[in-house]
């Protein structure tokens, strides 16, 4: 699976070394690879997260500090995401969720929004061109958000990529775009209301015969009902939420799902986020784990 993900990362123009590839720099690549595997083996002695969510902050600042075009920062950010997928897979992290584009980001300069849409379309189409590699990697890709707000080419490409990977059972990459948490909650409520309305209409028309009552149409909407209608239904809550570039807010990201998530805000900008930052994040999570697990179990017992 890691081999397939490396091919996938390569297809996205990421410079990544293949494990066991002998590089000209006197086996430095092999040493790096060996150290990475040892680090993962040591980390795996403690509790490992199943789901990590990222607010990929800092792409524009990265470009600004290096005096390069703003769009290039986002491109580098995409490459870093692809590269890190390999590490997640090696570590056994099954669910990765990334905050790619917020509904609030539409307020940005129209030319920037346009170039971001074009970048998304380009990268999604690139992934579609390499769909065999993605399916070989058994990687499932979701897009969470109000896809109707996207331009049609991007929306169509995103939906196609979701359909093509729907049957995969390996690593799950969920891309939130365009997304925000309050919109997700309202969307869940609208979906519940719509389903119940259809049930009621069906019953009145005589076609459901008690289905409406048995499907809880007349009962109160519960927290579980809302859970089942969120974009993240079927996905466990994030164990860790990482916002890069040192910012401390969640910016309307996964507010419903992060009750017991360890919130981290490392200083590096997203394009600078590497394996060692990921290893450090997991070490911090392992320290927090006993408390989070105990609190989670207590709350579950109360319910």
């Amino acid at each position, binding site marked *: 699976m890691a081999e397939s993900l490396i091919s996938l990362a390569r297809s996205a123009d990421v410079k990544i070394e293949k494990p066991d590839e002998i590089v000209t720099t006197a086996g430095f690549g092999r040493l790096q690879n060996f150290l990475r595997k*040892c680090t993962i*083996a*040591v*980390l*795996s*002695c*403690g509790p490992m997260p199943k789901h990590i969510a990222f607010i990929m902050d800092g792409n524009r600042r990265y470009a600004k500090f290096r005096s390069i075009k703003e769009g290039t920062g986002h491109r580098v950010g995409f490459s870093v995401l692809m590269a890190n997928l390999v590490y997640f897979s090696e570590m056994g992290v099954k669910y990765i969720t990334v905050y790619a584009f*917020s*509904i*609030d*980001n539409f*307020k*940005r300069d129209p030319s920037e929004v346009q170039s971001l849409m074009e970048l998304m379309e380009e990268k999604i189409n690139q992934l579609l061109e390499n769909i065999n590699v993605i399916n070989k990697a058994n990687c499932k890709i979701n897009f969470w958000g109000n896809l109707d707000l996207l331009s049609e080419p991007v929306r169509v490409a995103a939906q196609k990529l979701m359909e093509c990977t729907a049957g995969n059972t390996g690593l799950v990459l969920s891309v939130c775009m365009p997304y*925000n*948490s*309050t*919109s997700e*909650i*309202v969307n869940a*409520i*609208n979906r*519940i*209301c*719509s389903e*119940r*309305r259809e049930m*009621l*209409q069906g019953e*009145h028309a005589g076609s459901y015969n008690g289905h409406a009552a048995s499907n809880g149409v007349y009962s*109160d*909407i*519960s*927290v579980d*009902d*809302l859970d089942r209608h969120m974009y993240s239904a079927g996905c466990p809550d994030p164990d860790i939420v990482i916002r890069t570039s040192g910012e*401390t*807010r*969640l*910016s*309307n990201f996964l*507010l*419903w799902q*992060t*009750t*017991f*998530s*360890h*919130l*981290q805000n490392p200083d590096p900008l997203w394009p600078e986020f590497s394996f060692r930052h990921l290893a450090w994040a997991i*070490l911090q999570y*392992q*320290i*927090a784990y006993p*408390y*989070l697990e105990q*609190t989670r179990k*207590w*709350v579950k017992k*109360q319910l």
Partner: protein
Amino acid sequence: MITKLIFGLLWCLVHLVISICDLWSCLSNKLECYLISSKVLSKYQSLHLERLKCLGVVVDSGEAKNVMEVKQLLHWFSTIGIKYVALYDIEGVIKESLEPGMEASRDDKSMNSSDVCAYTKTSHGSHRHMVVECLSGSDGKEAIAKAANLLYSANYNCSTHGYGKINIVFTEADMACALRSVGGGGPEPDLLLVYGPVRCHLGFPAWRLRYTEIMHMGPLKSMKYGSIVKVLYQFSRKHQNYGQ
């Protein structure tokens, strides 16, 4: 087997080193807090709190049982000049222990039944008015579910009154209104202080957490006046784009 043992030992060693580093940073933080409290560090002496309209505080429920510490915290906030504090713990310990002891002033327009006004004295004897709101886990997801039911019942009434073909699509504004109606409204904290072993919001009402700066303060039993001043200073220097 031996490899696993070696990796296990390395894991313990790594965590031991991290604990020692954490201890060191804890000691240097204590020193800094002492210097701040002693007014040695001049840059912390004038705080610009115009942007801080509402302060949220999450407390670990186990630690929230220590009512005196919570009251001390509130006293410090009042001394600094905070006008509105939303106190939260997931189990509702703060609601049970603090609310009955406070002077209650219920505003008919404010739907949250746990709004209270607290008058606290500063060390100089003058009174400052600070609103303290006590929240618990039931004000989080359950409040959102209650608001959802309110919206659903509006939707259901339309269906039963012959408007079945009208597709009502609720907006965030509708949801905000419904939350206010069920007592789940209230200001969004600009800053959230988390007192507990871990940086985690523990289910603080999601609708009020959108753009809140979240700072981890460590365990409540180690709380320091200097660390509050430091965090408020850092907050005053923050800049938010709000997605732009």
